[in-house]
Protein backbone atom coordinates (compact mmCIF):
# COMPACT_ATOMS: atom_id res chain seq x y z
CA UNK A 1 0.00 0.00 0.00
CA UNK A 2 2.32 2.73 -1.19
CA UNK A 3 -0.26 5.49 -0.76
CA UNK A 4 -0.92 4.69 2.88
CA UNK A 5 2.77 4.51 3.60
CA UNK A 6 3.28 7.93 2.08
CA UNK A 7 0.54 9.42 4.24
CA UNK A 8 1.91 7.89 7.37
CA UNK A 9 5.29 9.20 6.33
CA UNK A 10 4.06 12.82 6.62
CA UNK A 11 2.71 12.12 10.08
CA UNK A 12 5.95 10.48 11.09
CA UNK A 13 7.98 13.38 9.76
CA UNK A 14 5.74 15.85 11.55
CA UNK A 15 6.48 14.07 14.81
CA UNK A 16 10.24 13.98 14.30
CA UNK A 17 11.04 17.15 16.27
CA UNK A 18 9.03 15.79 19.18
CA UNK A 19 10.76 12.42 18.92
CA UNK A 20 14.04 14.30 19.02
CA UNK A 21 12.99 16.22 22.14
CA UNK A 22 11.68 13.12 23.88
CA UNK A 23 14.62 10.86 23.13
CA UNK A 24 17.58 13.26 23.14
CA UNK A 25 16.42 15.79 25.70
CA UNK A 26 14.26 13.81 28.07
CA UNK A 27 15.96 10.41 27.97
CA UNK A 28 19.46 11.40 26.86
CA UNK A 29 20.04 14.17 29.39
CA UNK A 30 18.53 12.10 32.17
CA UNK A 31 20.85 9.19 31.38
CA UNK A 32 23.79 11.60 31.30
CA UNK A 33 22.83 13.08 34.67
CA UNK A 34 22.40 9.66 36.23
CA UNK A 35 25.80 8.63 34.88
CA UNK A 36 27.39 11.76 36.36
CA UNK A 37 25.93 10.91 39.75
CA UNK A 38 28.21 7.86 39.87
CA UNK A 39 31.36 9.88 39.16
CA UNK A 40 33.46 12.25 41.23
CA UNK A 41 32.55 15.22 39.00
CA UNK A 42 32.94 18.62 40.60
CA UNK A 43 33.09 21.70 38.39
CA UNK A 44 33.51 19.67 35.20
CA UNK A 45 32.21 16.21 34.44
CA UNK A 46 34.66 13.50 35.27
CA UNK A 47 34.68 9.90 34.12
CA UNK A 48 36.12 8.48 37.30
CA UNK A 49 33.46 6.21 38.72
CA UNK A 50 33.03 6.22 42.44
CA UNK A 51 30.01 3.96 42.78
CA UNK A 52 27.47 5.19 45.27
CA UNK A 53 29.93 7.54 47.02
CA UNK A 54 27.99 10.66 45.99
CA UNK A 55 24.81 9.10 47.33
CA UNK A 56 26.38 8.29 50.69
CA UNK A 57 27.75 11.83 50.82
CA UNK A 58 24.29 13.13 49.96
CA UNK A 59 22.55 11.24 52.72
CA UNK A 60 25.27 12.19 55.18
CA UNK A 61 24.57 15.86 54.43
CA UNK A 62 22.49 17.57 57.10
CA UNK A 63 21.35 20.10 54.53
CA UNK A 64 19.99 17.43 52.17
CA UNK A 65 18.23 15.59 55.00
CA UNK A 66 16.75 18.86 56.20
CA UNK A 67 15.60 19.62 52.67
CA UNK A 68 13.87 16.24 52.37
CA UNK A 69 12.13 16.76 55.67
CA UNK A 70 11.10 20.29 54.69
CA UNK A 71 9.69 19.28 51.33
CA UNK A 72 7.74 16.50 53.01
CA UNK A 73 6.20 18.85 55.59
CA UNK A 74 5.56 21.51 52.97
CA UNK A 75 4.16 19.02 50.48
CA UNK A 76 1.73 17.32 52.85
CA UNK A 77 0.43 20.58 54.33
CA UNK A 78 0.35 22.47 51.02
CA UNK A 79 -1.48 19.75 49.09
CA UNK A 80 -3.93 18.94 51.89
CA UNK A 81 -4.40 22.65 52.65
CA UNK A 82 -5.23 23.41 49.01
CA UNK A 83 -7.55 20.41 48.75
CA UNK A 84 -9.47 21.18 51.94
CA UNK A 85 -9.77 24.93 51.39
CA UNK A 86 -10.47 24.48 47.68
CA UNK A 87 -13.22 21.95 48.33
CA UNK A 88 -14.79 24.10 51.06
CA UNK A 89 -14.77 27.12 48.76
CA UNK A 90 -16.30 25.11 45.93
CA UNK A 91 -19.00 23.68 48.20
CA UNK A 92 -19.78 27.16 49.56
CA UNK A 93 -19.95 28.65 46.06
CA UNK A 94 -22.30 25.86 45.02
CA UNK A 95 -24.93 27.06 47.53
CA UNK A 96 -26.62 29.62 45.25
CA UNK A 97 -24.43 32.49 46.33
CA UNK A 98 -24.84 36.10 45.34
CA UNK A 99 -21.85 37.45 43.41
CA UNK A 100 -20.65 33.94 42.78
CA UNK A 101 -18.46 34.92 39.86
CA UNK A 102 -16.87 37.75 41.83
CA UNK A 103 -15.95 35.34 44.62
CA UNK A 104 -14.64 32.84 42.09
CA UNK A 105 -12.46 35.50 40.51
CA UNK A 106 -11.07 36.51 43.90
CA UNK A 107 -10.24 32.93 44.89
CA UNK A 108 -8.54 32.05 41.63
CA UNK A 109 -6.55 35.16 40.72
CA UNK A 110 -3.47 34.20 42.79
CA UNK A 111 -3.09 31.11 40.61
CA UNK A 112 -2.27 33.38 37.66
CA UNK A 113 0.70 34.80 39.55
CA UNK A 114 4.16 33.30 39.58
CA UNK A 115 5.69 31.70 42.64
CA UNK A 116 8.30 34.47 42.66
CA UNK A 117 5.58 37.10 42.95
CA UNK A 118 3.70 35.01 45.53
CA UNK A 119 6.85 34.57 47.61
CA UNK A 120 7.67 38.28 47.54
CA UNK A 121 4.16 39.36 48.51
CA UNK A 122 4.07 37.07 51.50
CA UNK A 123 7.64 37.93 52.48
CA UNK A 124 6.42 41.51 52.69
CA UNK A 125 3.23 40.69 54.61
CA UNK A 126 5.14 38.54 57.12
CA UNK A 127 8.05 40.96 57.54
CA UNK A 128 8.16 41.22 61.35
CA UNK A 129 9.33 44.83 61.60
CA UNK A 130 7.05 46.38 58.98
CA UNK A 131 4.40 43.81 58.10
CA UNK A 132 1.30 42.40 59.77
CA UNK A 133 3.04 41.96 63.12
CA UNK A 134 4.04 45.65 63.35
CA UNK A 135 0.61 46.72 62.23
CA UNK A 136 -1.17 44.67 64.89
CA UNK A 137 1.22 45.92 67.58
CA UNK A 138 0.65 49.52 66.62
CA UNK A 139 -3.07 48.89 66.99
CA UNK A 140 -2.38 48.13 70.64
CA UNK A 141 -1.89 44.38 70.54
CA UNK A 142 1.65 44.57 71.91
CA UNK A 143 2.26 40.85 72.25
CA UNK A 144 1.19 39.96 68.71
CA UNK A 145 3.72 37.69 67.03
CA UNK A 146 3.72 36.75 63.36
CA UNK A 147 7.40 36.37 62.57
CA UNK A 148 7.19 33.14 60.61
CA UNK A 149 9.63 34.02 57.83
CA UNK A 150 12.46 34.74 60.27
CA UNK A 151 11.60 32.03 62.79
CA UNK A 152 13.39 28.72 62.28
CA UNK A 153 10.49 26.68 63.59
CA UNK A 154 7.81 28.50 61.63
CA UNK A 155 9.42 29.47 58.31
CA UNK A 156 8.23 26.32 56.55
CA UNK A 157 4.65 27.15 57.54
CA UNK A 158 5.05 30.60 56.03
CA UNK A 159 5.77 28.82 52.73
CA UNK A 160 2.70 26.64 53.22
CA UNK A 161 0.54 29.71 53.85
CA UNK A 162 1.77 31.41 50.68
CA UNK A 163 1.46 28.18 48.71
CA UNK A 164 -2.12 27.54 49.80
CA UNK A 165 -3.00 31.14 48.99
CA UNK A 166 -1.67 30.60 45.48
CA UNK A 167 -3.03 27.10 44.82
CA UNK A 168 -6.39 26.71 46.59
CA UNK A 169 -8.24 28.41 43.74
CA UNK A 170 -7.11 25.70 41.33
CA UNK A 171 -8.73 23.02 43.48
CA UNK A 172 -11.83 25.18 43.81
CA UNK A 173 -12.24 25.43 40.02
CA UNK A 174 -11.80 21.71 39.51
CA UNK A 175 -14.07 20.79 42.44
CA UNK A 176 -16.76 23.25 41.38
CA UNK A 177 -16.77 21.85 37.85
CA UNK A 178 -17.13 18.37 39.37
CA UNK A 179 -19.93 19.35 41.75
CA UNK A 180 -21.89 20.98 38.94
CA UNK A 181 -21.59 17.75 36.98
CA UNK A 182 -23.37 15.68 39.62
CA UNK A 183 -26.97 14.82 38.86
CA UNK A 184 -29.74 16.76 40.54
CA UNK A 185 -31.66 13.53 41.18
CA UNK A 186 -29.21 12.59 43.89
CA UNK A 187 -29.89 15.88 45.63
CA UNK A 188 -33.62 15.38 45.53
CA UNK A 189 -33.37 11.85 46.88
CA UNK A 190 -31.06 12.88 49.68
CA UNK A 191 -33.22 15.87 50.63
CA UNK A 192 -36.36 13.75 50.72
CA UNK A 193 -34.57 11.40 53.10
CA UNK A 194 -33.91 14.42 55.30
CA UNK A 195 -30.13 14.21 55.14
CA UNK A 196 -28.52 17.50 56.23
CA UNK A 197 -26.73 19.49 53.56
CA UNK A 198 -23.26 19.11 55.03
CA UNK A 199 -23.72 15.32 55.14
CA UNK A 200 -24.67 15.35 51.47
CA UNK A 201 -21.44 17.15 50.63
CA UNK A 202 -19.31 14.85 52.76
CA UNK A 203 -20.97 11.50 52.03
CA UNK A 204 -22.41 11.89 48.54
CA UNK A 205 -20.59 14.69 46.72
CA UNK A 206 -17.06 14.22 48.06
CA UNK A 207 -16.74 10.54 47.06
CA UNK A 208 -17.86 11.35 43.52
CA UNK A 209 -15.27 14.12 43.30
CA UNK A 210 -12.57 11.61 44.18
CA UNK A 211 -11.01 11.30 40.70
CA UNK A 212 -11.10 15.07 40.05
CA UNK A 213 -9.61 15.87 43.45
CA UNK A 214 -7.00 13.15 43.01
CA UNK A 215 -5.98 14.72 39.69
CA UNK A 216 -5.78 18.15 41.31
CA UNK A 217 -3.77 16.69 44.18
CA UNK A 218 -1.40 15.03 41.70
CA UNK A 219 -0.93 18.31 39.89
CA UNK A 220 -0.10 20.11 43.12
CA UNK A 221 2.17 17.29 44.27
CA UNK A 222 4.14 17.49 41.02
CA UNK A 223 4.66 21.15 41.78
CA UNK A 224 5.88 20.32 45.29
CA UNK A 225 8.80 18.25 44.02
CA UNK A 226 9.78 21.12 41.74
CA UNK A 227 9.40 23.71 44.53
CA UNK A 228 12.16 26.21 43.99
CA UNK A 229 10.99 29.69 42.98
CA UNK A 230 8.80 30.33 45.99
CA UNK A 231 11.60 29.37 48.38
CA UNK A 232 14.18 31.50 46.57
CA UNK A 233 11.84 34.47 46.57
CA UNK A 234 10.49 34.15 50.09
CA UNK A 235 13.22 32.82 52.39
CA UNK A 236 16.12 31.66 50.18
CA UNK A 237 16.26 28.46 52.21
CA UNK A 238 16.71 30.22 55.54
CA UNK A 239 16.74 30.89 58.38
CA UNK A 240 19.50 28.29 58.64
CA UNK A 241 18.27 25.28 56.70
CA UNK A 242 14.68 25.78 57.82
CA UNK A 243 13.25 26.08 54.31
CA UNK A 244 15.93 24.36 52.27
CA UNK A 245 14.30 22.12 49.62
CA UNK A 246 15.78 19.40 47.38
CA UNK A 247 15.26 21.33 44.13
CA UNK A 248 17.19 24.25 45.59
CA UNK A 249 19.88 22.03 47.06
CA UNK A 250 20.42 20.56 43.59
CA UNK A 251 20.50 23.98 41.90
CA UNK A 252 22.96 25.35 44.45
CA UNK A 253 25.32 22.42 43.98
CA UNK A 254 24.87 22.39 40.22
CA UNK A 255 25.61 26.04 39.52
CA UNK A 256 26.73 27.67 42.76
CA UNK A 257 28.96 25.18 44.51
CA UNK A 258 30.12 23.35 41.41
CA UNK A 259 29.44 20.00 42.91
CA UNK A 260 28.14 18.19 39.87
CA UNK A 261 28.29 14.64 41.21
CA UNK A 262 26.40 15.47 44.37
CA UNK A 263 23.83 17.57 42.51
CA UNK A 264 23.08 14.87 39.94
CA UNK A 265 22.85 12.28 42.72
CA UNK A 266 20.26 14.52 44.37
CA UNK A 267 18.39 14.92 41.10
CA UNK A 268 18.38 11.15 40.58
CA UNK A 269 16.91 10.65 44.05
CA UNK A 270 14.25 13.20 43.18
CA UNK A 271 13.34 11.36 39.97
CA UNK A 272 13.15 8.09 41.87
CA UNK A 273 10.86 9.82 44.35
CA UNK A 274 8.56 10.92 41.53
CA UNK A 275 8.46 7.42 40.03
CA UNK A 276 7.66 5.90 43.41
CA UNK A 277 4.95 8.49 44.02
CA UNK A 278 3.40 8.35 40.54
CA UNK A 279 3.65 4.65 39.68
CA UNK A 280 0.83 3.39 41.94
CA UNK A 281 -1.44 6.19 40.74
CA UNK A 282 -0.78 5.52 37.05
CA UNK A 283 -1.16 1.79 37.66
CA UNK A 284 -4.54 2.35 39.31
CA UNK A 285 -5.65 4.54 36.38
CA UNK A 286 -4.45 1.91 33.93
CA UNK A 287 -6.31 -0.87 35.73
CA UNK A 288 -9.46 1.20 35.93
CA UNK A 289 -9.33 1.95 32.22
CA UNK A 290 -8.74 -1.71 31.48
CA UNK A 291 -11.73 -2.60 33.62
CA UNK A 292 -13.84 -0.15 31.64
CA UNK A 293 -12.65 -1.93 28.51
CA UNK A 294 -11.44 1.27 26.86
CA UNK A 295 -8.16 2.88 26.06
Amino acid at each position, binding site marked *: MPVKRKRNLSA*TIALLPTWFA*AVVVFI*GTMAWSIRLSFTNSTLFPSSTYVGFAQYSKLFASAKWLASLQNVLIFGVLYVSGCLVLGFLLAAALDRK*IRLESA*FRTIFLYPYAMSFVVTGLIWQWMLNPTLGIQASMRSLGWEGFVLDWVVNRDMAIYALVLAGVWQGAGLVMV*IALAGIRGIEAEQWKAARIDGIP*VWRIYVSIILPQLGPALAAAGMLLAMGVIKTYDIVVAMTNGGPGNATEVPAKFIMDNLFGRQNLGLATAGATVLVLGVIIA*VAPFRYAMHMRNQAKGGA
Partner: protein
Amino acid sequence: MNQPHPNGPKPARITAGRIGLYTFLVAAALFFLLPLYTMVVTSLKSMDEIRLGQIFALPATLDFSAWVTAWSGACMGTVCVGIRSGFWNSVAITVPAVAISVFIGAVNGYALSLWRPRGANALFGLLMAGGLIPYQIFLYPMVRGMANIGLYNSLAGIILVHVIFGLPLVTLLFRNYFVSVPEELCKAARVDGAGFWRIFFEIMLPIAVPMVVVVSMLQFTGIWNDFLLGLVFAGRDNLPMTVQLNNIVNTTMGERTYNVNMAATILTAIVPLAIYFLSGRWFVRGIAAGAVKG
Protein backbone atom coordinates in the same frame (compact mmCIF):
# COMPACT_ATOMS: atom_id res chain seq x y z
CA MET B 1 -36.60 22.46 54.63
CA ASN B 2 -35.05 25.85 55.02
CA GLN B 3 -31.83 24.80 53.30
CA PRO B 4 -31.72 25.90 49.69
CA HIS B 5 -31.67 23.37 46.93
CA PRO B 6 -28.79 23.86 44.47
CA ASN B 7 -31.11 23.81 41.50
CA GLY B 8 -34.03 25.48 43.19
CA PRO B 9 -34.91 29.16 43.50
CA LYS B 10 -32.73 31.53 45.49
CA PRO B 11 -33.53 31.25 49.17
CA ALA B 12 -35.86 33.93 50.43
CA ARG B 13 -35.20 33.64 54.14
CA ILE B 14 -32.07 34.53 56.00
CA THR B 15 -31.01 31.61 58.15
CA ALA B 16 -28.11 30.98 60.49
CA GLY B 17 -26.66 28.69 57.84
CA ARG B 18 -26.73 31.43 55.22
CA ILE B 19 -25.03 33.86 57.56
CA GLY B 20 -22.34 31.30 58.34
CA LEU B 21 -21.87 30.63 54.65
CA TYR B 22 -21.42 34.28 53.75
CA THR B 23 -19.16 34.85 56.75
CA PHE B 24 -16.92 32.06 55.49
CA LEU B 25 -16.90 33.39 51.93
CA VAL B 26 -16.20 36.96 52.95
CA ALA B 27 -13.43 35.89 55.33
CA ALA B 28 -11.89 33.79 52.57
CA ALA B 29 -12.21 36.67 50.12
CA LEU B 30 -10.38 38.94 52.58
CA PHE B 31 -7.58 36.38 52.94
CA PHE B 32 -7.22 36.17 49.15
CA LEU B 33 -7.43 39.92 48.56
CA LEU B 34 -5.26 41.13 51.43
CA PRO B 35 -1.91 40.52 49.71
CA LEU B 36 -3.02 42.32 46.55
CA TYR B 37 -4.32 45.24 48.58
CA THR B 38 -1.11 45.41 50.62
CA MET B 39 1.04 45.38 47.50
CA VAL B 40 -0.90 48.19 45.89
CA VAL B 41 -0.97 50.46 48.95
CA THR B 42 2.70 49.80 49.75
CA SER B 43 3.71 50.69 46.20
CA LEU B 44 1.98 54.07 46.58
CA LYS B 45 3.61 55.02 49.88
CA SER B 46 6.83 56.86 50.56
CA MET B 47 9.57 55.07 52.51
CA ASP B 48 8.94 57.35 55.51
CA GLU B 49 5.36 56.23 55.57
CA ILE B 50 6.36 52.57 55.22
CA ARG B 51 8.70 52.84 58.21
CA LEU B 52 5.69 53.60 60.42
CA GLY B 53 4.92 49.89 60.14
CA GLN B 54 1.26 50.20 59.24
CA ILE B 55 1.04 47.83 56.37
CA PHE B 56 -2.74 48.03 55.94
CA ALA B 57 -3.07 51.80 56.20
CA LEU B 58 -3.99 53.69 53.06
CA PRO B 59 -1.24 55.91 51.64
CA ALA B 60 -1.35 59.55 52.79
CA THR B 61 -0.91 60.81 49.26
CA LEU B 62 -0.94 59.04 45.94
CA ASP B 63 2.70 58.83 44.99
CA PHE B 64 3.52 56.98 41.81
CA SER B 65 7.26 57.66 41.95
CA ALA B 66 7.96 54.13 43.19
CA TRP B 67 6.31 52.82 40.04
CA VAL B 68 8.48 55.00 37.86
CA THR B 69 11.59 53.87 39.72
CA ALA B 70 10.55 50.21 39.53
CA TRP B 71 10.00 50.50 35.80
CA SER B 72 13.10 52.43 34.82
CA GLY B 73 15.47 52.96 37.74
CA ALA B 74 15.45 50.10 40.24
CA CYS B 75 18.78 48.44 40.92
CA MET B 76 19.76 44.83 40.35
CA GLY B 77 23.02 44.65 42.23
CA THR B 78 24.95 47.60 40.82
CA VAL B 79 22.96 48.07 37.63
CA CYS B 80 20.07 50.50 37.99
CA VAL B 81 17.89 50.34 34.90
CA GLY B 82 14.62 49.11 36.34
CA ILE B 83 12.49 46.18 35.40
CA ARG B 84 11.71 47.58 31.96
CA SER B 85 14.33 45.49 30.17
CA GLY B 86 13.03 42.38 31.92
CA PHE B 87 9.55 43.16 30.71
CA TRP B 88 10.66 43.28 27.10
CA ASN B 89 12.83 40.20 27.59
CA SER B 90 9.80 38.35 28.91
CA VAL B 91 7.77 39.46 25.90
CA ALA B 92 10.56 38.43 23.52
CA ILE B 93 10.81 35.02 25.19
CA THR B 94 7.14 34.31 25.77
CA VAL B 95 5.52 35.30 22.47
CA PRO B 96 7.62 33.12 20.13
CA ALA B 97 7.81 30.29 22.66
CA VAL B 98 4.01 30.22 22.94
CA ALA B 99 3.47 30.44 19.19
CA ILE B 100 5.95 27.68 18.39
CA SER B 101 4.93 25.34 21.19
CA VAL B 102 1.21 25.71 20.45
CA PHE B 103 1.81 25.02 16.75
CA ILE B 104 3.93 21.94 17.42
CA GLY B 105 1.49 20.79 20.09
CA ALA B 106 -1.42 21.08 17.65
CA VAL B 107 0.46 19.13 14.97
CA ASN B 108 1.44 16.49 17.53
CA GLY B 109 -2.06 16.12 18.89
CA TYR B 110 -3.47 15.85 15.37
CA ALA B 111 -0.87 13.32 14.19
CA LEU B 112 -1.06 11.25 17.36
CA SER B 113 -4.83 11.01 17.52
CA LEU B 114 -5.98 10.95 13.88
CA TRP B 115 -3.03 9.39 12.02
CA ARG B 116 -1.45 7.21 14.68
CA PRO B 117 1.81 6.52 12.85
CA ARG B 118 4.09 3.77 14.06
CA GLY B 119 5.32 4.44 17.58
CA ALA B 120 2.67 7.05 18.33
CA ASN B 121 1.77 5.49 21.68
CA ALA B 122 5.40 5.12 22.65
CA LEU B 123 6.08 8.77 21.86
CA PHE B 124 3.05 9.90 23.80
CA GLY B 125 4.05 7.79 26.80
CA LEU B 126 7.57 9.17 26.67
CA LEU B 127 6.32 12.74 26.55
CA MET B 128 4.00 12.22 29.50
CA ALA B 129 6.80 10.65 31.53
CA GLY B 130 9.07 13.54 30.57
CA GLY B 131 6.45 16.00 31.77
CA LEU B 132 6.38 14.44 35.23
CA ILE B 133 10.11 14.38 35.85
CA PRO B 134 11.69 17.29 37.77
CA TYR B 135 13.68 19.64 35.54
CA GLN B 136 16.77 19.40 37.72
CA ILE B 137 17.80 16.09 36.18
CA PHE B 138 17.82 17.58 32.67
CA LEU B 139 19.55 20.85 33.42
CA TYR B 140 23.27 20.27 33.42
CA PRO B 141 23.45 18.13 30.26
CA MET B 142 21.11 20.61 28.56
CA VAL B 143 23.35 23.50 29.47
CA ARG B 144 26.33 21.63 27.98
CA GLY B 145 24.37 20.63 24.91
CA MET B 146 23.10 24.15 24.32
CA ALA B 147 26.61 25.51 24.79
CA ASN B 148 27.90 23.06 22.17
CA ILE B 149 25.43 24.26 19.56
CA GLY B 150 25.97 27.90 20.55
CA LEU B 151 22.49 28.51 21.95
CA TYR B 152 23.34 28.74 25.65
CA ASN B 153 22.63 32.19 27.12
CA SER B 154 20.77 33.28 24.00
CA LEU B 155 17.22 34.30 23.25
CA ALA B 156 16.80 31.46 20.75
CA GLY B 157 18.13 29.07 23.37
CA ILE B 158 15.67 30.00 26.09
CA ILE B 159 12.80 29.93 23.58
CA LEU B 160 13.84 26.44 22.47
CA VAL B 161 14.02 25.26 26.08
CA HIS B 162 10.50 26.54 26.78
CA VAL B 163 9.19 24.87 23.63
CA ILE B 164 10.75 21.55 24.61
CA PHE B 165 9.51 21.62 28.19
CA GLY B 166 6.08 22.77 27.04
CA LEU B 167 5.64 19.81 24.68
CA PRO B 168 4.14 17.36 27.19
CA LEU B 169 1.30 19.68 28.25
CA VAL B 170 0.44 21.14 24.83
CA THR B 171 0.56 17.72 23.18
CA LEU B 172 -1.63 16.21 25.88
CA LEU B 173 -4.27 18.93 25.61
CA PHE B 174 -4.40 18.86 21.79
CA ARG B 175 -4.40 15.08 21.64
CA ASN B 176 -7.32 14.90 24.04
CA TYR B 177 -9.10 17.51 21.93
CA PHE B 178 -8.52 15.84 18.57
CA VAL B 179 -9.48 12.42 19.92
CA SER B 180 -13.03 13.73 20.21
CA VAL B 181 -13.07 14.90 16.57
CA PRO B 182 -14.93 12.33 14.45
CA GLU B 183 -12.48 10.26 12.45
CA GLU B 184 -14.86 10.28 9.47
CA LEU B 185 -14.03 13.94 8.95
CA CYS B 186 -10.40 13.06 8.43
CA LYS B 187 -11.22 10.02 6.30
CA ALA B 188 -13.57 11.98 4.05
CA ALA B 189 -10.91 14.59 3.46
CA ARG B 190 -8.40 11.87 2.65
CA VAL B 191 -10.77 10.34 0.11
CA ASP B 192 -11.01 13.76 -1.46
CA GLY B 193 -7.26 13.69 -1.87
CA ALA B 194 -6.19 16.05 0.88
CA GLY B 195 -2.91 15.20 2.52
CA PHE B 196 -1.64 15.37 6.08
CA TRP B 197 -0.86 19.08 6.09
CA ARG B 198 -3.84 20.20 4.04
CA ILE B 199 -6.26 18.42 6.39
CA PHE B 200 -4.43 19.99 9.30
CA PHE B 201 -4.49 23.57 8.06
CA GLU B 202 -7.87 23.58 6.35
CA ILE B 203 -9.97 21.41 8.64
CA MET B 204 -8.38 20.55 11.96
CA LEU B 205 -6.73 23.82 12.93
CA PRO B 206 -9.93 25.85 12.37
CA ILE B 207 -11.89 23.30 14.42
CA ALA B 208 -9.33 23.54 17.20
CA VAL B 209 -9.40 27.32 17.60
CA PRO B 210 -11.00 27.20 21.08
CA MET B 211 -8.29 24.81 22.23
CA VAL B 212 -5.61 26.98 20.63
CA VAL B 213 -6.87 29.90 22.71
CA VAL B 214 -6.93 27.90 25.94
CA VAL B 215 -3.52 26.31 25.41
CA SER B 216 -1.99 29.65 24.41
CA MET B 217 -3.24 31.24 27.62
CA LEU B 218 -1.92 28.41 29.76
CA GLN B 219 1.43 28.44 27.99
CA PHE B 220 1.62 32.22 28.12
CA THR B 221 1.09 32.42 31.88
CA GLY B 222 3.33 29.40 32.44
CA ILE B 223 6.24 30.77 30.44
CA TRP B 224 5.80 34.34 31.67
CA ASN B 225 5.84 33.06 35.26
CA ASP B 226 8.84 30.79 34.77
CA PHE B 227 11.86 31.49 36.92
CA LEU B 228 14.13 28.45 36.86
CA LEU B 229 14.60 28.02 33.10
CA GLY B 230 15.06 31.75 32.55
CA LEU B 231 17.65 31.86 35.32
CA VAL B 232 19.63 28.97 33.86
CA PHE B 233 19.31 29.36 30.09
CA ALA B 234 18.48 32.97 29.19
CA GLY B 235 21.82 34.61 29.91
CA ARG B 236 22.42 38.06 31.39
CA ASP B 237 21.01 40.00 28.47
CA ASN B 238 17.76 38.08 28.20
CA LEU B 239 16.77 37.52 31.83
CA PRO B 240 12.99 37.36 32.13
CA MET B 241 11.09 39.68 34.43
CA THR B 242 10.69 37.14 37.22
CA VAL B 243 14.45 36.71 37.58
CA GLN B 244 15.07 40.46 37.47
CA LEU B 245 12.35 41.00 40.05
CA ASN B 246 13.97 38.56 42.44
CA ASN B 247 17.33 40.27 41.85
CA ILE B 248 15.84 43.67 42.61
CA VAL B 249 14.18 42.55 45.82
CA ASN B 250 16.58 40.00 47.23
CA THR B 251 20.04 41.25 46.28
CA THR B 252 19.70 44.94 46.98
CA MET B 253 22.43 46.47 49.10
CA GLY B 254 21.55 48.86 51.90
CA GLU B 255 18.02 49.72 52.86
CA ARG B 256 15.33 47.96 50.93
CA THR B 257 12.95 50.22 49.11
CA TYR B 258 9.78 48.29 49.78
CA ASN B 259 7.59 50.63 47.78
CA VAL B 260 9.73 50.11 44.67
CA ASN B 261 9.85 46.36 45.35
CA MET B 262 6.09 46.12 45.54
CA ALA B 263 5.61 48.24 42.42
CA ALA B 264 8.05 45.95 40.58
CA THR B 265 6.18 42.92 41.89
CA ILE B 266 2.86 44.25 40.61
CA LEU B 267 4.42 45.08 37.24
CA THR B 268 5.69 41.50 36.97
CA ALA B 269 2.29 40.05 37.84
CA ILE B 270 0.26 42.41 35.72
CA VAL B 271 0.39 40.60 32.38
CA PRO B 272 -0.77 37.18 33.62
CA LEU B 273 -3.32 38.95 35.85
CA ALA B 274 -4.66 40.89 32.88
CA ILE B 275 -4.99 37.66 30.90
CA TYR B 276 -6.82 36.09 33.79
CA PHE B 277 -9.17 39.01 34.38
CA LEU B 278 -9.91 39.60 30.70
CA SER B 279 -10.54 35.99 29.81
CA GLY B 280 -11.14 34.20 33.08
CA ARG B 281 -13.63 31.83 31.51
CA TRP B 282 -11.05 30.49 29.06
CA PHE B 283 -8.44 30.38 31.75
CA VAL B 284 -10.72 28.32 33.99
CA ARG B 285 -11.58 25.99 31.12
CA GLY B 286 -7.91 25.51 30.36
CA ILE B 287 -7.05 24.74 33.96
CA ALA B 288 -9.90 22.27 34.28
CA ALA B 289 -8.93 20.60 30.98
CA GLY B 290 -5.27 20.46 31.91
CA ALA B 291 -5.85 19.22 35.41
CA VAL B 292 -8.63 16.72 35.08
CA LYS B 293 -7.02 14.90 32.20
CA GLY B 294 -3.43 15.21 33.38
